[in-house]
């Protein structure tokens, strides 16, 4: 699996420089977690990698194998982004629909080939929602909806997965379960997970970075020991969490008192 290298990324909004000259390497087949307070530019960095509009950004994103990251990305946001007019099955096969071009429509190629349909059902089974394939999203709970979003991400089958606080809106138990599920299903993919929850970063990340300051810089990577998803009975992990929480708290305190 190839690494993804981000070089000299910078972001400004008018005269305000959010970050500049940021370098980050996402190790192939591993989870990289990015921690940071709000407004530090985490989401913008993610958007920059995905080539989505975000302020005035510069920088280059390349894959180790020399190809562009374009069309190698799956996107998972904090909101589940399910379309309310599509059933669960239609939602997770949205990519197939959106990539259908006019010739496919005119030649009446079936919307979902048997193969795709089968794949979709097997993914739904993995996230434990095979019974809900024909249900509209409005009849699902928050956790179920986010599992559908995860299924849609898997369905895209891209090597690089960008996640923007995907479990942020869930309750603690659901969040832990979904973290385990995502960790299991997205194994061997290159994942960049943005979160403000140190525990989540420490449970899932092979490497954990902290984006902080004005302009924001990346701290050295923390490499928590053990296999992911790490369990909660690990004392070392808890100590690290405490340290990170402390750092995040001071950071927001500094912000409030107006110091850089």
């Amino acid at each position, binding site marked *: 699996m190839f690494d993804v290298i981000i070089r000299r990324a910078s972001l400004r909004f008018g005269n305000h420089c959010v970050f500049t000259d940021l370098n980050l390497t996402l190790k192939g087949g591993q989870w990289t977690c990015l921690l940071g307070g709000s407004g530090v530019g985490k989401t913008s960095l993610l958007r920059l990698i995905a080539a*989505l509009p975000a302020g005035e950004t510069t920088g280059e994103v390349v894959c180790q194998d020399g190809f562009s990251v374009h069309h190698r990305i*799956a996107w998972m*946001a904090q909101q589940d*982004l399910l*379309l309310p007019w599509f059933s669960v099955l239609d939602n997770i096969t949205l990519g197939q*629909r*959106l*990539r259908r071009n006019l010739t496919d429509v005119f030649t009446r190629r079936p919307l979902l080939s048997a193969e795709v349909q089968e794949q979709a059902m097997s993914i739904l089974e993995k996230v434990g929602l095979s019974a809900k394939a024909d249900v509209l999203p409005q009849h699902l709970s928050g956790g179920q909806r986010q599992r559908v979003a995860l299924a849609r991400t898997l369905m895209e089958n891209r090597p690089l997965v960008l996640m923007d606080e995907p479990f942020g809106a869930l309750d603690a138990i659901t969040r832990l379960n979904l973290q385990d599920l995502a960790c299991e299903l997205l194994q061997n993919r290159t994942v960049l997970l943005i979160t403000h929850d140190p525990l989540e970063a420490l449970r899932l990340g092979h490497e954990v970075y902290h984006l902080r300051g004005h302009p924001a810089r990346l701290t050295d990577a923390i490499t928590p020991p053990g296999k992911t998803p790490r369990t909660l009975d690990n004392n070392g992990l808890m100590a690290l969490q405490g340290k990170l929480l402390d750092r995040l708290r001071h950071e927001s305190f500094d912000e409030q008192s107006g110091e850089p």
Partner: protein
Amino acid sequence: MKDSVKPFVVLVGLLVLWHTLVMAFDMPSYILPGPLAVANSMVDNASLLWEHTLVTLSEMLLGLLLGVLLGIILALVLVYFTALRPWLLPPLLITQAIPVFALAPILMLWFGYGLTSKVVMTILVIFFPVATCCYDGLRHTHQGWLDMAQTMGGNRLAILRHIRWPAALPALASGLRVAVVVAPIGAVVGEWVGSSAGLGYLMLQANARLWTDQMFAALTVLAFCSVTLYYTTDRVLRRLIPWQPETSQE
């Protein structure tokens, strides 16, 4: 009391009030005929009313169909051809700033006394609310959906079909509800200015001869058509677009 019964109770109440007013003040029938006289006139002139109702209804429905179509096309053009927007908006606003009443005689001159001029009038009052609502709906697609579609590598047409269009439907539905309500105005005003058939024409004729009961009969039929059209549209829209915010809250 059930919600579906309430409008009928109001209706009966109004009829009773109307009847008492006529009795109490001993109104001459050429000023205000009572509900019974109007009902009588409706029965006596049933075939006449039916004939003219068909004319007005076809004007309204044809105008609605074409007006809605024009409104939607206009909204799509405004959204997808941004360069055209500053050119298109002023003439559009002008068509709305001039009252249709003022335009009606010219339209008669151009399109004749028949169906066409009334349909054009109806289109004129309808396309604008439809276009603005649809345009608003298309412009305010949830950014997250569009971002996701972009990372998925979707093509523009597919994004319109599967995301932007369905997302705009609740807004378009509001426009349609307005359109259905104002459609009779276009048709009837057209008939007043110049026509040889239709409920508006019938009302004008009856009015000139002081057949006030017949005029009220025509008015009642018109009101009935409008209300039925509105409720049917509302029902169908709710059924077709279950993701509208106001229906999902129920």
